[in-house]
């Protein structure tokens, strides 16, 4: 991983690729690389769809190695949704394959010279770029079928659907999974629109003949990986709850806590929760011959995903994740699994962020465009997005724009990005992260819960009321660091509860790269990423007043606990005081 592949899409006669040494970005991976490169090379005040913006696609520091769970891909740019810096993260095969070919990053830069679309093919011999005119307007599923016919089913793809071509602010970038379905998405922030603005429809990566990346200290690495995998397997969450039911095991629990946003964040509980719970999905998937336990890339130990078949036993989509089930389910008042699975499929096909789309459909429902619970209407609305009709163009640009278009105050967004599946009034600590993350409302920004092991910012007394400010800060630091490794964030549970598993992670990094990182270095890495991101946003015009939740979260009490968001602005401003 000592090469950066830059593709200048503005070159005469079509995009040109140039490989260069990793240079100033040596030792960086994943979100560390994407955020530092965007902060350094993209003018913060540029238009997100203009020539100065770049898309940086970077595997993590451990991607492409034998380390379990290391296949996450980071995609960074200036976001057309938030106007700030963005790192969106995806599973699938792409990170492993790209890393094995030796690339620390692929960078798309410049402005597409014409209205043409291109295909980029990367293998061990180099890069070929050709017209993708034949693929114009195709959904991700048909596109990948055609790629398979031509390149076989061993390649990995990074692609956009029609939403990316339309440059919609909710457009995602799809990565193919082990079955070569385009089901894993760098979803948030409109990264697909930026790829669309560069005129690149699909990047096909073929690692045939490329070897697994080799560690500096193979013996130590092998031992660390063994301890790592054992740690993940023995933990009740990473070895039990996640494989059995997937992330959607959370539906029942968050609903029970009264923090499950329902009908556009009007209440905290959904009557139909048990019909769409992970337990119910797992039973249905098994009954229909799908799979309730499945990985999104080779080398995933936890396997939180699954395969969802339709009523006839035919593949429809991957097991919808908790956030998707919430967004298209409870938040829209829909309690039908097949509808949610179909919406997930359509989002993946058009290339859309499921969280943003669920939140947006709910806003449209709240505005009276259709009724809460209208399953057929929700499907039709997403199809409008796929068609690119005038209504679809509004919906495809997210919850904030849709609320504005329909004259509605109740847009559950921060920095223009829709909130995920936890109501910040019931779980106020997550509201602190929604408000202050440089990414806009983002649950993964403060996801890594290893903070008291890392001792990031000192040990936090959880019983003190101010704990949630410190915790949110520390969680954001730890998450940024994990995002740099290429590790799936779900490792955090095992790392939290089992110090020896955290040590195994450090040993993996150290033995692979010949380093001697400590917990302090990991903390410093997380802080440096967040600082680069905050500085970019500041230069892009962000002020502390944008680190706030919409005011109705302070005004409207949430049932059943009748709580409002009470963290003060002054407290929120302390999150990044370190």
């Amino acid at each position, binding site marked *: 991983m000592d090469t950066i592949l830059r593709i200048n899409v503005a070159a005469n006669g079509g995009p040109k690729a140039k490989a260069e040494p990793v240079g100033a970005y040596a030792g960086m991976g994943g979100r560390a690389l994407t955020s530092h490169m965007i902060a350094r090379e993209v003018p913060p005040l540029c238009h997100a769809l203009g020539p100065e913006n770049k898309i940086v696609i970077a595997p993590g520091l451990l991607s492409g190695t034998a380390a379990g769970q290391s296949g996450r891909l980071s995609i960074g740019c200036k976001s057309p949704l938030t106007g700030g810096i963005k790192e969106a993260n995806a599973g699938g095969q792409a990170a492993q394959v790209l890393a094995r070919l030796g690339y620390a990053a692929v960078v798309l830069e410049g402005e597409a010279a014409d209205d043409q679309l291109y295909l980029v093919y990367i293998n061990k011999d180099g890069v070929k770029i050709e017209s993708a005119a034949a693929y114009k307007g195709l959904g991700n599923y048909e596109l990948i079928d055609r790629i398979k016919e031509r390149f076989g089913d061993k390649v990995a793809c990074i692609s956009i659907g029609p939403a990316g071509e339309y440059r919609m602010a909710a457009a995602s970038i799809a990565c193919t999974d082990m079955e070569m379905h385009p089901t894993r998405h760098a979803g948030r922030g409109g990264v697909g629109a930026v790829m669309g603005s560069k005129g690149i429809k699909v990047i096909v990566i073929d690692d045939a003949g490329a070897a697994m990346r080799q560690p500096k200290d193979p013996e130590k690495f092998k031992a660390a990986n063994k301890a790592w995998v054992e740690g993940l397997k023995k933990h009740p969450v*990473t070895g039990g709850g996640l494989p059995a*039911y997937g992330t959607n095991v959370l539906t029942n*629990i968050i609903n029970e806590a009264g923090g499950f946003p329902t009908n556009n964040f009007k209440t905290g509980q959904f009557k139909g929760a048990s019909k769409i719970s992970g337990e119910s999905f797992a039973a249905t998937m098994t009954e229909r011959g799908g799979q309730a336990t499945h990985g999104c890339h080779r080398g995933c130990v936890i396997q939180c995903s699954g395969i969802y078949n339709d009523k006839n036993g035919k593949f429809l989509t991957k097991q919808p994740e908790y956030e998707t089930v919430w967004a298209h389910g409870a938040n829209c008042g829909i309690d039908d699994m097949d509808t949610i699975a179909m919406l997930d499929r359509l989002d993946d096909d058009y290339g859309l962020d499921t969280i943003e789309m669920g939140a947006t459909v709910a806003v449209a429902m709240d505005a009276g465009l259709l009724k809460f619970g209208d399953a057929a209407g929700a499907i039709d609305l997403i199809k409008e997005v796929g068609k690119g009709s005038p209504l679809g163009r509004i919906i495809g640009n997210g919850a904030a724009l849709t609320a504005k278009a329909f004259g509605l105050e109740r847009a559950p967004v921060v920095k223009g990005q829709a909130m995920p599946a936890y109501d910040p009034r019931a*779980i106020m*600590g997550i509201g602190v992260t929604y408000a202050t993350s440089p990414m806009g409302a983002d649950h993964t920004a403060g996801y890594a819960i290893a903070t008291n092991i890392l001792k990031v910012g000192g040990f936090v007394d959880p019983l003190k009321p101010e704990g*949630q400010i410190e915790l949110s800060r520390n969680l954001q630091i730890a998450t940024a660091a994990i995002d740099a490794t290429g590790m799936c964030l779900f490792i955090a549970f095992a790392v939290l509860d089992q110090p020896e598993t955290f040590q195994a992670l450090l040993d993996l990094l150290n033995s692979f790269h010949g380093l001697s990182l400590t917990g302090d270095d990991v903390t410093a890495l997380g802080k440096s990423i967040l600082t680069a991101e905050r500085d970019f946003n500041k230069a892009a015009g962000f002020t502390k007043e944008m680190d706030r939740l919409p005011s109705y979260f302070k005004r409207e009490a949430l049932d059943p*606990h009748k709580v409002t968001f009470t963290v003060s602005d002054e407290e929120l401003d302390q999150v990044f005081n370190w």
Partner: protein
Amino acid sequence: MVDSFSNAGGDKLSASGGPSWARLTGLVQEGFALYGLEGQSLRDFMREALGMSDAYIEGAVSTVFLDYKPVDDLDGAVIRPGCLVSLSAAMPGLVGAVMRRNSPYASFREAISHGGHTEQEEAQKDKRCIVRVKLFNAVMREHGPLLLSQGIMLEPDRIAAAIGTPLPDGYSAEHGAPGLVLLRSLAEHGVPGAAGAFGAPRP
């Protein structure tokens, strides 16, 4: 354990819950009723009414709600008539970790956490009362079949909807629990279409 739930007649218990289990998991997630004792601690209710061992409570039931409030102190929280007890294994995600008992991240949910001792002195000690219970995920899978074999109380229309057939004649309200009937997963007791889901009607 209230003795009216003893497993009459030596019916076979099935660790997997028997043939009716798959159709009954929805009911177990959505909630059923059991008898508890007013003023009893939540821990004692889990031991006695639910029949959970101390090791299972400590090791497996990491996430506990009383009336939708995450509970940290199982000995301080007490049973009240009509209260709702919801039980789950350890959950993923930051918010999953936040919800765990005695989570280091409990401050994230301090606005909704259960406050511990609640008017214990006012409770009529040891008076039998109806308690609603929900079991989720691994706790449902591991403990649900056993509980079902011992008997749980449900509204008859919910049972009929779950098994897709009306209740047989002779079913009447559970004594002392108006509107509820006793459901047991007893091996192949010939209720047509019900796959042996019922125990005998309460006398």
